[in-house]
C-alpha cells in the first residue's frame, strides 16, 4: 500500500501527515507514507484544496485534516 499526503507545506498538511502515521501504527498495517509538496504532482491528482490524502493512487479526500479514526477506516 502506498499513501501520499498532498500539501504545500502548511500547518494543516503536517497535521494530516502525523494523523496518517498514527493511524497506520495503530492499525498495525504497513505502508509507505510520503509527503507530496510540489505543485505539478498535486495537480496531477486534480486536487485543488490541500491537504489531501491519496491511497494507492486514489484521492480519498481533500481540503481537510481527517482524524486518526477516520483515516483508519480508509486503510
Amino acid at each position, binding site marked *: 500500500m502506498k499513501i501520499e499526503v498532498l*500539501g*504545500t*507545506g*502548511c500547518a*494543516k*498538511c503536517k497535521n494530516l501527515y502525523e494523523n496518517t502515521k498514527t493511524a497506520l501504527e495503530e492499525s498495525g498495517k504497513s505502508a509507505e507514507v510520503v509527503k507530496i509538496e510540489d*505543485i*505539478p504532482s*498535486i*495537480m*496531477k*491528482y*486534480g*486536487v*485543488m*484544496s*490541500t491537504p489531501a490524502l491519496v491511497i494507492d493512487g486514489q*484521492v480519498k*479526500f*481533500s*481540503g*481537510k*485534516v481527517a*482524524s486518526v479514526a*477516520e483515516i483508519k477506516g480508509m486503510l
Partner: protein
Amino acid sequence: MLKAAADYLVFTLAGLAPGSRGGEALNFFIYDTLKIFLLLTTIIFVVAIIRSSFPPEKTRRMLSHKREYVGNVLAALLGIVTPFCSCSAVPLFIGFVESGVPLGVTFSFLISSPMVNEVALIMLWGLFGWKIALIYIGSGLLVAIIAGIIIGRLKMEKYVQDYVWEMQVGSSELKTMAWREKLDYAREYTLGLLQKIWPYVVVGVGLGAFIHGYVPADFLARWAGRDNFFAVPVAVALGVPLYSNAAGVIPIVHALMEKGMAIGTVLAFMMAVTALSLPEAIILSNVLKRPLLATYFGIVATAIVIVGYLFNAIL
C-alpha cells in the same frame, strides 16, 4: 440574557460600581466575549455544513467557460460558500484556469472568498449589527465582481506564469459526503477554527473594552472622522499587514468607531484586512507574474478606497 449575565458577574459578584470606568470596561469585555463566542460556534458550524456541499472541484465545474458578468457574479457568490485557505491558493488557481474558468472570473472568486468570510461576518454582525454586516457583504461582492471584470478586460493572460498553462491537471471524482460525514466535518472545522482564533478574539475584545472604557469620546474624530480625506487610504494601507486577524481586529475597530472613526473608513479598513495580504501575494507570485500581481492588488485597493469614500459620504 447575556447582558444580564455580564451585569451580574461584574456588578454583583465582583462588586464593581455600574458607571465606573473599570466596571464598564470589564462588563463590556465579558458581554462581548460571551456574545461573540456563542455566535462564532453556532454560525461556523452551520457554514461548515453548507461548505461541505461546495468543494472547490464543484465550484470549478460551475464556473468553467462562464462568460463575463454572469461568471463574475457567480464566482463572487460561490466565493462565500467555497472553503478557501490561502495555503491552497496556488492549486486552486491552477485548477480554475486549466479547466477553462476565465482569468477575470477566477479573480472574482479569489477576491471574494477571503473577504466575505464567515468569521468577519459574524464579528461584524455581533458587534456592529446586521445592517453593517449586510453592507459589508454587498460591497465586498461588488468589489470582487468589478475588480474581476476589469482584470478580465485587461487581457493579462500572458502575465500568468508560463508553466501554469502547460500543467497537466488530472481529474479526481470525489464522492459527495453523507450527512454523518458532513456533521463530522463541520464539528472538526468549527473546533479547528475556534482553536486558531480564540486568542485573537479575547485580545481584540480586551483592547476594545479598554478603549471603550478609557479613551475619551471623539478622540479619533479629528484624524479618522469623515472630514479627513486621508483617513480611508491610510486605513487601507494599515489593513494590509493585519491579514487573517479579522477576529482580533474587528472588536478594536468597533471601539474606535465609538470614538469617532467614520463608518466608511471602518469598512474599508476591514476589507483591506481580509482581502489584501502580503503572505497571499507571496503565495500568488508562484502563479502570477509581477505586472498581474501588481494590477490585482492595485485594482482591489482602489475599489476598497472608493467603497470607503462612498459610505463616508452617504451614511
